[in-house]
């Protein structure tokens, strides 16, 4: 049970930049790294949160895991089996085991087919089933997500936002997927509907012992849902660890800034806007232009330091290096 079912190491995804006509860009400039050496692993029945702001690469990560994008570098193991993105059967294996629920329920459901047909899309071998078997499976899946039977013959436009997300969930659950990638599954929903979907997700996890990769920008949702969290910033995981540890003792300055900026009912009334946010740095530590604790060592890219309960990519935790370079420099 404690063996990780998905292991991702050094995942790097890059997109080709748009180049202007007649502009000859060097090879370095041609590609934009959207994900830069990402490593994490997930156990069965675990919820792994990925938090990040706009442009952090959250959605790219989600899409890469279901084989929509082909990474440049990677070592991905699914149930101990090495995945090769060049092999079609490996991509199919990935898709058979990992399902995805997209943020935008309108764009991800075909408006021209009924809900039951959409749900059956999730079955890879549906042609081998009789109508009766198929109907039974659809009914089971819709019961799991608490979708009323009357909605099965409706079209997506007749559904509310919450119901659409339930349909998306049923589509991934019908094929018996082991891992669900949830890409901002509740951010387009009203708060009370979001709460219903979160409750549903908790219930499903306990019932089916599936794993979630929960991607969102909402820290309160991450805190509530996840066992472990990774903080993504412009393609790099700056910190990852146990949720409680990350929220109670954020080590990376970026994590601390995020948690400090988060509003909850118990937020203190003061917030210091001491340091300005800058662009991500192309050399050295990626967060140095926005960091309040930058010092000389930050000109080099930091390795990942293992602090026991969390992994942090920040020079502040290389104590030997720090004593050589002197005290943290004022920005």
């Amino acid at each position: 049970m404690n063996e990780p079912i998905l292991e991702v190491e050094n995942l790097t995804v890059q997109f080709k930049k748009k180049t202007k006509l007649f502009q000859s860009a060097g090879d370095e400039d041609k590609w934009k790294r959207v994900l830069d050496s990402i490593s994490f692993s997930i156990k069965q029945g675990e919820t792994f949160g990925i938090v990040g702001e706009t442009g952090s690469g959250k959605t790219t990560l989600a899409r890469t895991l279901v084989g929509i994008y082909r990474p440049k570098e990677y070592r991905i193991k699914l149930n101990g089996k090495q995945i090769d993105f060049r092999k079609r059967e490996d991509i199919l294996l990935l898709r058979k085991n990992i399902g995805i629920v997209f943020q935008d329920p309108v764009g991800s459901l075909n408006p021209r087919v009924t809900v039951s047909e959409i749900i059956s899309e999730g079955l890879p071998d549906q042609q081998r089933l009789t109508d009766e078997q198929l109907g039974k499976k659809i009914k089971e899946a819709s019961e799991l997500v608490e979708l009323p039977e009357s909605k099965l013959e409706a079209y997506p436009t007749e559904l509310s936002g919450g119901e659409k997300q339930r349909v998306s969930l049923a589509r991934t659950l019908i094929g018996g997927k082991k891992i669900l990638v949830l890409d901002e599954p509740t951010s387009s929903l009203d708060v009370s509907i979001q709460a219903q979907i979160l409750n549903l997700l908790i219930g499903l996890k306990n019932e089916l012992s599936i794993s979630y990769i929960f991607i969102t920008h909402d820290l309160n949702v991450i805190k509530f849902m996840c066992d472990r969290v990774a903080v993504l910033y412009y393609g790099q995981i700056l910190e990852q660890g146990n949720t409680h540890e990350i929220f109670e003792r954020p080590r990376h300055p970026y994590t601390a800034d995020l948690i400090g900026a988060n509003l909850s009912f118990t937020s203190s009334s003061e917030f210091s806007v001491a340091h300005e946010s800058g662009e991500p740095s192309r050399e050295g530590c990626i967060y140095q232009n926005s960091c309040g604790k930058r010092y000389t060592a930050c000109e080099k890219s930091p390795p990942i330091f293992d602090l026991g309960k969390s992994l942090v990519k920040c020079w502040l935790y290389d104590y030997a290096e720090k004593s050589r370079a002197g005290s943290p420099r004022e920005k």
Partner: protein
Amino acid sequence: MSAPTSHRDNLGTNLLEVRDLTVNFETVDRIVEVLKDVSIRVGREEVVGVVGESGSGKSTLAQTVIGVLDTPPARITKGTVGFEGKEILQRSDKKINFRGKGINMIFQEPLTSLNPVYSVHDQMEEAVNIGEPKMEKKEKETVIRKSLREVMIRDVEGVLNVYPHQLSGGMRQRVSIAMVLVQKPKLLILDEPTTGLDLIVQRKIISLILNLKKEILSSILLITHDLEVAAYMCDRVYVMYAGRVVESGNMKEVLQRPLHPYTTMLKNSVPEGYAKEGSLKVSSGAPPDLRHLPSGCAFHPRCQSAKDECRSKIPELKAKKDGREVACWLYE
């Protein structure tokens, strides 16, 4: 349908006083009541929140107050909007120009509220011209730059020469705040000012708005779906559901001791703390479709304490002690 009430005297000492506002959206085949008997007030130097989910009518309320509601399809059938004691809803004469220096608004999506074909400088200048048409050119330039610096834009000259699409979301919202600032409005309406912005940017914009509020002493009417943002910013709050105000009162008290079952549910919907502490207490169902409102209290199908009365009669908003108001049969 009765004709809109004509000018009423004695609209009170409040800066903004909306009374019994009823707005319908009328199409060929049906009439939908979007706002029903909504009364709110905003005192001087007060931050007042209007909180609700989709379809609650909160944005229609803001649009009616500032007078940008499209009529038709909308029709104001009842009610008054008083600003500094003057009725502004039925005002057809252009003499009482309340927009700009009186009431101003910051919209949710700054990309659509800023003009894409004017540079930031030209838009700012237009805003200054409306406020101070007789100001000298040199002084205008100083005012524009000062205002941009006040919203914490470092590279003022750089920002002045670009067009809105060249700026990030946070910068755009700062520019629209700066445009409002040059006019120093007495009432600032914020319609979901930070939705869609990143967390750190959102918090910076909120702090910025609250600091500016202290300096130019304007009142704020905040329209939001986000109870946490409202809790942080507001002195008082109105909770809306299906076009009606269902509860109002001091923000802290409403949060600590919600009276209406809907407010309780809204509060319980916000995930707080760690997962191991159980699931969220929320009832099933969704905000109602305004075209097919349930009979009686619109919340009764989702309400766990609904009684027979709730299914047949609509509860009125009634004053309770400590300046609280609630529209619920449980408190009759």
